[in-house]
């Protein structure tokens, strides 16, 4: 037993680092470090840079334009990009609809969509949640009624991240309401430019706009845009729940946040000495660092098991719970570190290129908004309560 990833993987890590060093635009890196707002162009721009290097679809096999990485390589890529301030790649195309099309799509669908996902030519969003459905996904009400070669879609989706940036949306819709709720669901690909679609922003508590409501009013969708058989959409939904979940550990990003926390605690004062030397705050940082180690070591064990051919099981739930708790904890400590300067709410200071002097220390403005925003992590993507239920059922057999 050892902790070595081996020389090949080490070389790969060096390659990723060097590539980021060379290729990540400096203004993007700066925004990420300082917690400033990213534009759609920042995010897509980075995706295209990766694509130009053949890394546009990190989790995909070669036949669909991916690099065919091992689980360990994927892990290394996630960690290094996260730690080195790269924007997240939007998961909706790469980790969701892409793998779905690969597994269930027709040849036409593959040809039409996969290359544009890998190249970031087309942005996707996910139409799953509805008002009133929450964790009970299968209770969805958006209906698609067949009319010849077309479905007419009516209904509403919500919590749709990046719908305002997306060109296409993939949706679970009800195509039969006479059967058990899981059995009347189909999976549709819908062009956002189709008449009858309206996107309304949902403003989150810190004032940000990431999620949306999406309304469908007699939206005509070609039947050829259905993935898989009619009424078999639930199978696809379940497939997605199990797909590539180790990236939710966010090890790289949490390492970057921990580093930031240590820097800020060294800069902030308490009783005339650095906050970092305060025994209590020092303990909190140590605890967070240990929690991060525990998460990283568990993740490495999971990745190793995957590499040895094990299917990722309920470990994804474990990782999701602890990773989100850690992200929230770090954001809380960052806010705590700056004392009263967490109070000023200056969204203008989060815009890149804003040139006024900052109200407090220049690292302060984003910290409370991030703390508020990250409360979502234990709610979205299967709430942590749902994850505990999964562990209880799958591991403990209750």
């Amino acid at each position, binding site marked *: 037993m050892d902790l070595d990833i081996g020389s090949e993987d080490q070389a790969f890590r060096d390659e990723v680092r060097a590539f980021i060093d060379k290729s990540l635009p400096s203004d993007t890196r700066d925004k990420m470090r300082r917690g400033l707002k990213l534009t759609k162009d920042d995010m897509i721009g980075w995706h295209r840079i990766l694509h130009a290097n053949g890394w546009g679809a990190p989790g995909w096999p070669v036949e669909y334009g991916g690099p065919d990485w091992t689980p360990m390589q994927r892990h290394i890529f996630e960690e290094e990009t996260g730690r080195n301030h790269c924007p997240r790649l939007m998961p909706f195309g790469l980790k969701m609809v892409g793998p779905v099309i690969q597994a269930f799509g027709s040849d036409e669908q593959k040809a039409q969509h996969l290359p544009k996902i890998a190249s970031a030519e087309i942005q996707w969003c996910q139409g799953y*949640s509805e008002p*009133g459905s*929450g*964790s*009970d996904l299968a*209770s969805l009400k958006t209906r698609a009624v067949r009319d010849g070669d077309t479905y007419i879609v009516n209904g509403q989706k*919500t*919590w749709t991240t990046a719908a305002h940036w997306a060109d296409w949306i993939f949706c679970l819709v009800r195509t039969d309401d006479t059967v058990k709720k899981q059995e009347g669901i189909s999976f549709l690909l819908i062009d956002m430019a189709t008449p009858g679609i309206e996107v309304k922003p*949902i*403003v*989150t*508590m810190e*004032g940000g706009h990431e*999620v949306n409501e999406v309304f469908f009013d007699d939206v005509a969708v070609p039947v050829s845009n259905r993935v898989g058989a009619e009424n078999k959409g639930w199978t696809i939904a379940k497939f997605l729940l199990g797909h590539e979940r180790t990236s939710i550990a966010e090890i790289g990003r949490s390492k970057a946040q921990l580093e930031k926390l240590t820097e800020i605690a060294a800069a*902030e*004062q*308490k*009783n*005339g000495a650095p*906050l970092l030397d305060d025994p*209590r*705050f020092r303990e909190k940082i140590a605890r967070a660092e240990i929690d991060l180690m525990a998460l990283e070591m568990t993740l490495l064990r999971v990745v190793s098991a995957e590499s040895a051919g094990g299917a990722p099981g309920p470990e994804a739930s474990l990782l999701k719970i602890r990773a989100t708790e850690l992200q929230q904890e770090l954001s809380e400590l960052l806010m*705590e570190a700056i*004392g*009263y*300067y*967490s*109070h*000023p*709410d*200056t969204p203008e200071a989060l815009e890149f290129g804003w040139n006024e002097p900052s*109200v*407090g220390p220049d690292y302060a403005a984003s910290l*409370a908004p991030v*703390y*508020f925003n990250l*409360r*979502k992590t*234990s*709610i*979205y993507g299967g*709430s*942590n*309560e749902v994850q*505990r239920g999964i562990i209880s059922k799958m591991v403990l057999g209750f």
Partner: protein
Amino acid sequence: MPFALTDEQKLLQESVDRFVERDYGFDIRTRLAESETGWSAENWAIFAELGWLGVPFPEAAGGHGGGPVEAGLISEALGKGLAVEPYLWTVVLGGGLLARAGRTDLLEALIAGKLQLATGFAEPQGRYALNDVATMAEKSGGDLSISGRKAVVFNAPSADFLIVPARTAGARTDARGITLFLLPADADGVELRPYRTMDDSRAAEATLSGVRAGGDAVLGEIDDGLALLEPAVDVATAVLCCEAAGVMQALVSQTQDYIKNRKQFGVPLSSFQVLQHRMAEMFIHMEQTQSMAYMAVVRGAAGGGREVSRAASAAKAYAGEKGKLVGQDAIQMHGGMGMTKEMPISSYFKRITAIGSLFGDADYHLDRFADLAGGGAG
């Protein structure tokens, strides 16, 4: 009997509760929070009319002879409605300092609703320590000349006067040598940089550049300003804990309603045992925070000294930690809805978060509580 309210106190409590219920719906609150000043002059006039601004001051000063307990009851009730009026800053802290300094001349205007105050008790390098004062007041002719920077001065954008601790002697963190000055907010050399805060309050950075102050600008004794400031902040802290208790009551009751009405898998969320037990814990935190807050205002009413400080710090450490837990759980149980700006719960969460660090966070007050320990297990 301990904790029993007098008839006057009950009436006061009911009257504020009624006002909040009838005239302070969340939509109104949102409108006020987004207005230019961030609060309502109309409401302030009503507060004056109903006597709430004078409640905590001695009758000799034109007040109604109440004290921290009455201020606490008002703040608790206002907290339930998330009222944005600067009661804490103008009446409790600012007014408290004026009263302690015997400035009845200004209290009259305050009680009539004609005066707004802000106190610059924090500096950029000082974190929560009241004694960390780098702002200097130096002799210049017959007057003093004050220069320095005050951090996150709440209510400064609306204030007629700023109360400013400045150093007239001693080194930066000495307890002695701090003097409190009452400065017109529009005095020469006062520069404010105003902004909104995370919980829709208003504050400003205050830069003082050679602001001239005569002897009449001094509150209390020269060099002994901390003797005025610290007990006043203790009382304000205790009153703020009462507000926290009110905010927590709203967090609990709104969450309770939400999970009772929201269905998932065909049953109300409140039928899930995990949520039931979590809400039971939230209920306990809320009840105990209220007990601690009441204790702290009662101690504050009894006078000054170590016991008042210990009570305030104990209550604040408790409210800080439990408020955070209750707030976070309230959001979690609201699910995605809790994340939206539109849903009242998120504003309550932001307020309880802001309260968490006002006058010092839980760590600060735990430390202070332990520092003040004298006789062991009390």
